[in-house]
């Protein structure tokens, strides 16, 4: 059912790059993914042939551009199985989508005495907007803690949800790879009368998504992590919630009328898309959705489970206790993101040594400082695999780490 990643790899121009005679081993897709030729070509072709405004002007270029932009929206709707196309709002990234929810839904619904539930494994994008709003509105932020193997500890979930108006949580940790039980958490939230917001940045690119099966209320993700261009993100929200929310940014396109005395909002999705949107970027995202769909998200997931299992096994076989892989041990309940700790070697030095062999991993806090504190580290070296990574990539990673132990081994 899965595909041959060495064939898929050929679709990605950057990955053909050779530096100092060595291939590029790109293991930073949890950060941002590379783009296939079909996405790059779609962008290029659109800019050379059909670029125009998307306000349904009467002329041909404008209607071609409008169709391309709205066509991308329709593709995204289908990709995540959202009920309605006008529930798909294009933002600049997932961070803006999460801020939009906090600023618009949150500011209208949260006050002192209220509570919002987050988890200890959230990305800063799903923490800071709530902290900013809480400082203003005076509601409480409650935290779901972690189990020792990096899962959410849901034993007190109902207590945490008691009296909460919203829970906002990641579907997959960008540090630990943990896949969280989205449906279980959403249904607990709904039983408690809270809405459920899913940060799907790490899950949408890597596995099938069905927002209706999740029964979520809002879902946010970014194009650049799913083979699409930078500069565009997605917010999906339930129509009834989006309709009731005040606008977020004000300006052109989001209005039905403007007078000196005040304005009237446009209908969805325009209401939340103020100003000239990321037109070219939507076209690129649409092409990325097509690309992923052609491979099949079930296959993408299957490939990632395989390569994760392979990489984890190779690392453990080779280095045993001298290496720690944070998070769940079973590849079946995690994504292809491996945060590794080498005994006696700092993550920054690990990534420096890997860079010598053109292996791209990220060393740092991965925008999850609260989680770092809980793990008791200031940083991890994170190798994250995607559909274009092969067993050979994993082998090069495993082999090259020897150099780090050689240099720093005490």
């Amino acid at each position: 059912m899965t595909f041959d990643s060495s064939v898929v790899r050929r679709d990605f121009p950057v990955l053909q790059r050779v530096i100092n005679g060595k291939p590029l081993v790109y293991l930073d897709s949890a950060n941002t993914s590379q783009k296939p030729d079909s996405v790059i070509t779609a962008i290029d072709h659109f800019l050379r042939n059909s670029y125009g405004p998307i306000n349904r002007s009467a002329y041909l270029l404008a209607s071609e551009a409008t169709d391309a932009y709205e066509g991308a929206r329709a593709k995204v709707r289908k990709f995540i199985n959202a009920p309605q196309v006008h529930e798909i709002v294009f933002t600049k990234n997932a961070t803006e989508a999460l801020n939009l929810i906090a600023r618009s839904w949150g500011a209208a619904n949260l006050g002192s005495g209220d509570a919002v539930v987050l988890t200890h494994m959230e990305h800063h994008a799903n923490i800071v907007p709530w902290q900013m709003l809480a400082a203003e509105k005076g509601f409480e932020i409650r935290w779901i803690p972690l189990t020792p193997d990096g899962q959410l500890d849901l034993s007190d979930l109902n207590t945490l949800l008691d009296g909460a108006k919203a829970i906002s949580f990641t579907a997959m940790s960008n540090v630990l790879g943990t896949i969280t039980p989205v449906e279980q958490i959403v249904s607990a939230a709904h039983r408690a009368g809270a809405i459920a917001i899913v940060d799907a940045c790490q899950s949408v690119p890597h596995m099938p998504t069905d927002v209706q099966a999740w029964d979520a209320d809002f879902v946010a993700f970014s194009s650049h992590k799913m083979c699409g261009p930078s500069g565009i993100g997605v917010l999906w929200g339930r129509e009834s919630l989006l309709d009731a929310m005040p606008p977020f940014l004000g300006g052109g396109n989001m209005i039905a009328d403007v007078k000196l005395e005040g304005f009237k909002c446009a209908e969805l999705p325009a209401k939340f898309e103020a100003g000239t949107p990321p037109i070219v970027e939507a076209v690129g995202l649409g092409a990325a959705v097509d690309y992923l769909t052609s491979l099949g998200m079930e296959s993408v997931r299957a490939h990632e489970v395989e390569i994760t299992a392979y990489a984890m096994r190779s690392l453990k076989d080779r280095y045993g206790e001298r290496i720690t892989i944070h998070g769940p041990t079973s590849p079946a309940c995690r994504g292809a993101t491996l945060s590794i700790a080498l005994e006696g070697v700092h993550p920054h030095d690990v990534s420096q040594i890997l860079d010598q062999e053109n292996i791209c991993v990220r060393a740092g806090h991965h925008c999850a400082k609260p989680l770092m504190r809980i793990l008791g580290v200031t940083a991890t070296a994170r190798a994250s695999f995607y559909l274009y990574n092969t067993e050979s990539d994993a082998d090069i990673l495993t082999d090259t780490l020897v150099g780090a132990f050689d240099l720093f081994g005490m």
Partner: protein
Amino acid sequence: MPGLEDLYREIILDHYRTPRNRGELPPPARMAEGHNPLCGDEIHVYLDVQGDTIVDVKISGQGCSISQSSASMMSAAVKGKDINDVLALVKRFKQMMSIEEENADTTGEIDTSIKLGDLEALQGVVKFPVRIKCATLAWNTLVQALESPER
């Protein structure tokens, strides 16, 4: 590992493995905390200053080989020294790291006769621009500590 000899000189690895002046000083010793927000490195510098002299210095915190060894070498270089000499050394070190000071005109000449000793081992870092901030973290924190009041 080929290509990395310039960065990871033996003396740097030695300071990383056996850091000098590791620890804390109790109040009223001065203290400052430095952060590298990109990689999460943290350094705390403690100073016991008597008159114009840095009588004692201690370093704590976590970080990569470059930030930790730079901190260790720095502590060895400033302990027992006159503050003015130390400030001149900071300037000289940053020059080696190719950091241009803002308001360079007003801060006066850099004394290139100052001997850097072991610290010269860090010169190779300049070829790895991402790591320059690691090497300078301890030094910026030192200056902060000097500017802090006693606790």
